[in-house]
């Protein structure tokens, strides 16, 4: 699926949080969205989903396979979310409903979009749990989120986002809240699944080392504006903007300081 965000402006209480963001993801493309905190990365993702915070107003254009999403009625948007667009959130500790069993959460998009009956949804939830390398998926789907580790929970989050085989996957810093070893395995899994399914990907991160593992192209945001767009190798080799140089320097510093 292609995603074309053109001249996206988001305002909240008279402040301009996004100022003319352009983002283009070709079918099967994997684009990173990087920038410091507060640069508008997550907000861009929420604007694509039509889930901006209360009072925020979006203008411009968000097209999914050529279909305009901005200004679409809520009912229509709900049909897009979860079915055509899967989303992985940042913090697996808070992104799973604590009182619902894991399997039910994975199956939720299937049930909501009437893609499967109850038994079929459970079977596919187990299958999705197996696909993300969760141990003993047949019984794990009956667990509650607090019985899982952080890495396991994020795998549940990934399984939920991918269970409907969406054409576009949005990932909002899915590995930031995980420890480094877990990060690497979750990231590898994520990349494999997105590539296998042939989904397009928007991957939000502030970590270029993470970015290099999943994305081919990158858009750098600063203060709600796009300051640079490049392929990932080009950006790492010769960052043009001041913000990108800073991010590259930070990535090098962490790589070199590793024992």
């Amino acid at each position, binding site marked *: 699926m292609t995603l074309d965000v053109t001249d996206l402006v988001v305002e909240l209480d008279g402040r301009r949080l996004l100022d003319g963001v352009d983002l283009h993801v070709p079918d099967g493309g994997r684009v990173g969205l990087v920038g410091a905190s507060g640069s508008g990365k997550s907000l861009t993702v929420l604007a694509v*989903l039509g*889930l901006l915070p*209360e*009072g925020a107003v979006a203008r411009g254009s968000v097209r999914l396979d050529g279909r305009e999403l901005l200004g679409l009625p*809520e*009912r229509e948007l*709900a*049909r*897009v*979310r*979860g*079915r055509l*667009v899967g*989303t992985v*959130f*940042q*913090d697996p500790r*808070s*992104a*799973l*409903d*604590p*009182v*619902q069993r894991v399997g039910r959460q994975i199956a*939720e*998009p299937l049930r*909501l*979009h009437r893609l499967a009956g109850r038994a079929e949804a459970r079977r596919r939830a187990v299958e999705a749990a197996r696909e993300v390398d969760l*141990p*003993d998926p047949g*019984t*794990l*789907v*009956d*667990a*509650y989120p*607090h*019985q*899982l*580790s*952080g*890495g*396991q929970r994020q*795998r549940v*989050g990934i399984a*939920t986002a991918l269970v409907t085989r969406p054409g576009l996957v949005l990932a909002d810093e899915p590995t930031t809240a*995980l420890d480094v070893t*877990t990060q690497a*395995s*979750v990231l590898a899994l994520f990349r494999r699944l997105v590539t296998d399914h042939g989904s397009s990907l928007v991957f939000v991160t502030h970590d270029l080392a993470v970015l290099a593992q999943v994305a081919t192209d990158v858009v750098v945001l600063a203060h709600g504006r796009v300051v640079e767009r490049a392929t990932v190798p080009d950006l790492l080799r010769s960052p043009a903007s001041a913000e990108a140089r800073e991010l590259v320097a930070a990535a090098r510093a962490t790589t070199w300081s590793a024992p």
Partner: protein
Amino acid sequence: MTVLRELLRRPRGAVPAAWLALVALAALVSRWWTPQDPFRADPYQQWQGPSVAHPFGTDAVGRDVLSYVLAASGTTVVVAVASAAVAVVVGVLLAALGSLARRWVREVTVVLVDVLVAFPTILVAMALAAVFGGSLGVVVVAVGVGYGVAIGRVGRGELRRVATSDYVLAGRAAGLGAWGSLRRHVLPNAAPVLVVQVSLAMATSVLAEAGLSFLGYGASAATPSWGRLLSDLQPFLAVHPWTVAWPGLAITLTVLSLNLLGDALRDAADPRLRTSGRRPAERTAP
């Protein structure tokens, strides 16, 4: 069903539930049958101690205290359930308006709730009784609205916390609409706090009914009530402690059970607080 099973498998939930079930049963049965007529005075049977004929003894006019206590349990159950129902409707409405509605509606609701919370429930009940005369309806309205406001206040914060949580956003991103999100994620997560409040509302209404009847503002003389019986017998506490103790015991046990049941229900409804139960997957390394 899971919640009910979880509730009954621990003594902290099962014991109060059993007592309340007993009260409910007594309330039901005593509508048609009590060992003796609870209102029949027998001048030859004053102040009898506990016996086979009168297990709880008799009072100053020779009424059978057991029959009266049983008959009065109906009043208690009706008042508690009705007050709780009013409280839930008022409370959930205020909580939803104060947390999920448009901004100006939220702000007006919050101010309204803060003003209403300042009036003590018992005082409101006495004021209403002074205007409309004492009746059980007064108790139900006063406790229902009074506790409804309290539920609205606590519930607003809870709904707000849940509604702005990541998992609700994640549910929306999975395709849930606003109402679906409320039903699937918001209410189940806010429910434990509301359940505790509802059980407190029931406990308060039992106490308020007893207290107001004791003061003469509640049930009329024709309506048997634990509070009224307590107030009738109270002057004789030092002389006939065994007779006077029963209505007090019934009130205490019922209020205590409601409080304990509320806590146990909250624990049973929240999988993180279940102390035992199935562990489908133990914590393992990622």
